[in-house]
């Protein structure tokens, strides 16, 4: 039994295991990186029904794609999102794991979210714009066609807002809608009276596929992991064989030192 636990053999196994795990870890890292943003190929306007299926999550490929939607405003269902700035992107924390604090050099105010009911009686939350004085904004009413881009619910994994800003979630929209609501929200690009148009957080689809280069590197590292495993087995086997030979030599009295 002793020969299985020689110091050299333990070192071989430790190095083998470490290198193998490192290669697999690096493969995982590349796989993670492969889920990168791939910018949309064109700015074609798609119909709202194509982009935002009802009773389902907003597809990642719909995020940031221009669309337009026609419906009736619900004047009693306004949501005000406080402590926000015009540019959505600047509210995103660079590190989703920690609390980031930012002091703004730009005006801080509200995002005005109104609910629009569509012909199929579904509801969609529309960020109509930014204001510092929401009490002066008249309730939205009547029928209108709004152009804009769809955004995911702000509680999607990997997104965290700075300064502890309350996220605009699908839940919040559902709570304020009379009818079944679409996932995510629309940021209006068509101007609304006395409101400043808001810059959306996501200007391109969140995930539109895999970055082929990182996928190639993922398999590259797995390839390496395989080679390391092969070398590990070979070296350990040679070491055992060597110990076997040394032992039989010692048994025969050829080697008096061991």
């Amino acid at each position: 039994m002793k020969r299985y636990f020689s110091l050299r053999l333990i070192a071989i196994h430790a190095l083998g295991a470490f290198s193998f795990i490192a290669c697999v870890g690096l493969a995982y890292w590349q796989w993670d990186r492969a889920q990168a943003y791939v910018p949309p190929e064109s700015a074609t306007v798609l119909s709202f029904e194509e982009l935002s299926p009802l009773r389902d999550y907003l597809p990642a490929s719909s995020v940031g794609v221009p669309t337009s939607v026609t419906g009736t405003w619900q004047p009693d269902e306004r949501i005000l999102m406080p402590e926000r700035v015009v540019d959505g992107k600047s509210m995103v924390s660079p590190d989703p794991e920690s609390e980031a604090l930012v002091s703004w050099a730009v005006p801080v105010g509200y995002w005005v979210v109104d609910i629009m009911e569509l012909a199929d009686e579904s509801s969609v939350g529309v960020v109509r714009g930014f204001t510092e004085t929401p009490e002066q904004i008249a309730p939205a009413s009547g029928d209108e066609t709004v152009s804009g881009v769809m955004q995911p619910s702000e509680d999607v994994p990997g997104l965290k807002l700075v300064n502890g800003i309350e996220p605009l979630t699908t839940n919040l929209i559902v709570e304020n809608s009379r009818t079944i609501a679409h996932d995510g929200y629309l940021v209006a690009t068509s101007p609304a009276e006395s409101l400043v148009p808001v810059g959306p957080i996501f200007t391109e689809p969140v995930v539109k596929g895999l970055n082929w280069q990182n996928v190639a590197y993922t398999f590259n590292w797995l390839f390496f992991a395989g080679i390391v495993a092969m070398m590990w087995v070979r070296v350990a086997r040679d070491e055992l064989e060597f110990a076997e030979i040394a032992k039989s030599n010692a048994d025969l009295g050829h080697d008096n030192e061991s």
Partner: protein
Amino acid sequence: MNREDFAKQWLFYRIMAVVVGSVLLILTAFLISVRVLENPEPPFYAAAWTAHGYLFPVYVVATFMLSTKLKWSFGKTILIMLAGTIPLMSFFTERRVAKEVSQS
């Protein structure tokens, strides 16, 4: 040692050393062009680095197979493997190993 087996592995190692060395040399020239001289990336640039990423482990396998035949120490094997990551270096190591083989 089986002569024929060894001859095959020796050839395999030499081919891989020259291929990896040449590809790395060409890619390093492009790397300097892109990073230092700030020229635009040639169209095949990313794909070529990826290809190199797959060629290098093959070189590592070739080195390892040869090392078991020539009974190299672990440290020497690793050094010769790492030589494949330094431009021009694999050409020199290939020459040195050739000398060693001709003497044995």
